[in-house]
């Protein structure tokens, strides 16, 4: 196995004392920042990106691997101890894990989340090692038209599958595409949307976009609605679990991993769906069905493993195709580009040492995370008590540092604020932010592939679907887009989404969902924005699952 020897070389690079120290620092920083309320993994990575600017690429990416897993773990700690999810993929953890914590089993909930994340991360990274070389071999043979089709699928999947309103997803996507247009068109040297501002000619730095939408947007949004009573944090001791907990957890870990990884690896809309699927599966299979809804350990173990496996899975298309399928991967892709490194099939050839060192660091980071975080759980829990004014002032502070550090330019700070206000408006009106981030990063690449494909076909538009792979992908896109119609046909209107779509007459829009409150009453009851776990899972999984495997 060539991959294995490459991996061993990667370990040789990553295991030097200095690099090990960078990995440990990354894990600690990632967890510390990720645990802070309001900061999800993508924002953690974006905020900590500037820290790696001064390092040489290998050290930077080794640190990055630590930040990546640390940020993921930090998020689940917050969910368990604080009840409200920082992001949609930890909704289940927030519900079931918090119920466990309330019953005095916070330590066990944290332990099953930590060990489950470790198991999932370990298996997920091993699958990455096994799959990546194969995918690279296949990917070298696919052309511009196929790439373009895959990117379209990524756009549609992240927009149409996630969130409750498709039209708002597409609005977010279009905003992201617009931001991606800004700058000089590389093929012709023409300026687009620069309005004569020289600093815009190079385009808006993706770090500025990500930090603006995530950090500034979030800080302003929270500031406008800051909860003034102290948060209800459950105290915890060292994370540990008994033999019985262990025997109830290990099967959910493995099943969760099996569900999560494919969803991450394919452009199928991120970790939200597999965590729900995992919860439903565990509930069905459990001997303790009565405990579900009151803090069942299986309901934490499965979804948490699923969440982490999905995160590991997203690295497969990110590294082999340069295709980000969630916000965190999109920010990481931006980080690569910042170092002049283009992820894609050629990456493994050109920067083999770096990639394998990165992959080795994922194993190391994952292990460090487990070793550090089981005993450190009480310390992380204390971070949750950070006074909110300091927390959000700190976010604005570090976001400014990061955006300024990119080019040492105050224009970037102004752009940061404008994009932050955009992020604020998107949160206010329920526009999902992930499609925008993906579109900013993937939009220009998609345009490049489109032009290349049409150049090859001499401008013949049918050149875009001339290959079987491209045809197949467009078929999947059509199914995803028309799903509301199809499901209405199949389920005879039982599906609430289908009913709403039927009323609206158009599959792409319509006041989907059950609540049609008037916007002048922003008063929402205390419920976290979550789908009911028992709800039918969005049913695109079968199509997308087969779809990404050319």
């Amino acid at each position, binding site marked *: 196995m060539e991959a294995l020897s490459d991996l061993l070389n990667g370990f040789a690079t990553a295991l030097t004392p200095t690099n090990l120290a960078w990995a440990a620092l990354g894990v600690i920083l990632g967890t510390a920042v990720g645990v802070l309320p309001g900061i999800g993994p993508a924002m953690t990575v974006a905020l900590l990106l500037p820290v790696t600017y001064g390092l040489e690429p290998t050290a930077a990416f080794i640190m990055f691997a630590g930040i990546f897993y640390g940020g993921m773990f930090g998020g689940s700690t917050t969910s368990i101890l604080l009840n409200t999810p920082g992001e949609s993929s930890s909704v289940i953890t927030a519900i079931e894990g918090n119920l466990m914590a309330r019953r005095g089993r916070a330590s066990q909930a944290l332990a099953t989340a930590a060990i489950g994340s470790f198991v999932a991360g370990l298996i997920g990274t091993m699958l990455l090692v096994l799959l990546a070389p194969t995918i690279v071999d296949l990917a070298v043979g696919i052309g511009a038209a196929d790439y373009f089709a895959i990117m379209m699928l990524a756009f549609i999947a992240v927009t149409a599958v996630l969130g409750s309103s498709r039209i708002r997803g597409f609005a977010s996507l279009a905003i992201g595409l617009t931001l991606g247009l800004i700058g000089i068109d590389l093929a012709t040297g023409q300026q687009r949307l620069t309005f004569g501002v020289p600093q815009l000619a190079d385009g808006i730095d993706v770090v500025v976009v990500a930090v603006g939408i995530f950090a500034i947007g979030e800080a302003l949004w929270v500031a406008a609605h800051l909860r003034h009573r102290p948060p209800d944090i459950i105290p915890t001791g060292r994370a540990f679990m008994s033999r019985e907990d262990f025997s109830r957890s290990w099967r959910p870990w493995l099943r969760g991993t099996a569900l999560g990884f494919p969803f991450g690896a394919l452009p199928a809309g991120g970790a939200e769906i597999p965590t729900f699927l995992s919860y439903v599966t565990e509930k069905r299979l459990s001997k303790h069905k009565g405990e579900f809804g009151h803090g069942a350990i299986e309901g934490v173990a499965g979804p948490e493993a699923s969440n982490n496996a999905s995160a590991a899975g997203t690295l497969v298309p990110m590294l082999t195709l340069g295709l980000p399928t969630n916000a965190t991967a999109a920010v990481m892709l931006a980080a690569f580009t910042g170092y002049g490194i283009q992820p894609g099939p050629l990456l493994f050839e050109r920067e083999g040492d770096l990639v394998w060192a990165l992959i080795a660091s994922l194993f190391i980071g994952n292990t460090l995370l487990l070793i550090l975080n089981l005993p450190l759980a009480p310390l992380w829990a204390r971070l949750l008590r950070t006074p909110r*004014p300091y927390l959000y002032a700190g976010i604005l502070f570090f976001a400014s540092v990061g955006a300024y550090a990119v080019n040492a330019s105050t224009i970037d700070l102004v752009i940061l604020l404008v994009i932050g206000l955009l992020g604020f408006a998107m949160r206010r009106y329920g526009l999902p932010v992930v499609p925008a981030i993906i579109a900013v990063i993937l939009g220009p690449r998609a345009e490049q592939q489109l032009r290349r494909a049409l150049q090859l076909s001499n401008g013949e538009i049918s050149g875009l679907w001339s290959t079987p792979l491209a045809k197949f992908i467009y078929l999947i896109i059509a199914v995803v887009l028309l799903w509301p119609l199809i499901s209405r046909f199949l389920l005879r209107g039982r599906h609430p989404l289908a009913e709403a779509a039927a009323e609206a007459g158009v599959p792409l829009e319509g006041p989907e969902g059950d609540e049609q409150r008037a916007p002048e009453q922003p008063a929402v009851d205390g419920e976290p924005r979550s789908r009911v776990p028992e709800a039918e899972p969005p049913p695109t999984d079968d199509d997308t699952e087969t779809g990404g495997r050319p």
Partner: protein
Amino acid sequence: MSSLSERLRGRSELGICVLLAALGVLVLVDASRIPTDFTQRGPVGPAAVPVVVGVALLVIAVLLARDVLRGGHGEAEMGEDVDLSNPSDWRTVLLLIAAFLVNVVLIDRVGFPISGALLFWGSAYALGSRHYLRDPLIALALSVITYLIFARGLGIGLPAGPLEGVL
């Protein structure tokens, strides 16, 4: 049937539609002034994708407006520290923006250690912290330590301003 003014009331979400439509027009106008005939390589010129994006923005603006007028609305985002039962606190938001802009204006003039401290202190004040001794001390310590870590430790350029040589 309700009258138009009744249907418009409280639908501030239509502002998003206006924003999208304005963006669409902006993108299309900008695309129209790109000379497409020469410099072009290959069948797709520099204006083609902007035209597609601009049209998409306009279409989405119309569809979203239709959705809003039919009673649909986006769910405001929840979060750990978000309490949607109160109306938006615009004063805090504006103060935060002011603190942010103070840093933008001052960073190249007085250096990061000072402007960053003002940013942090101002933001903490805006968010309701009223420890008149502790807040500025934390702000200054954070700012100076960050400066030292970034500029000295990581080699990332943050302006020192008049404190150059002191720090």
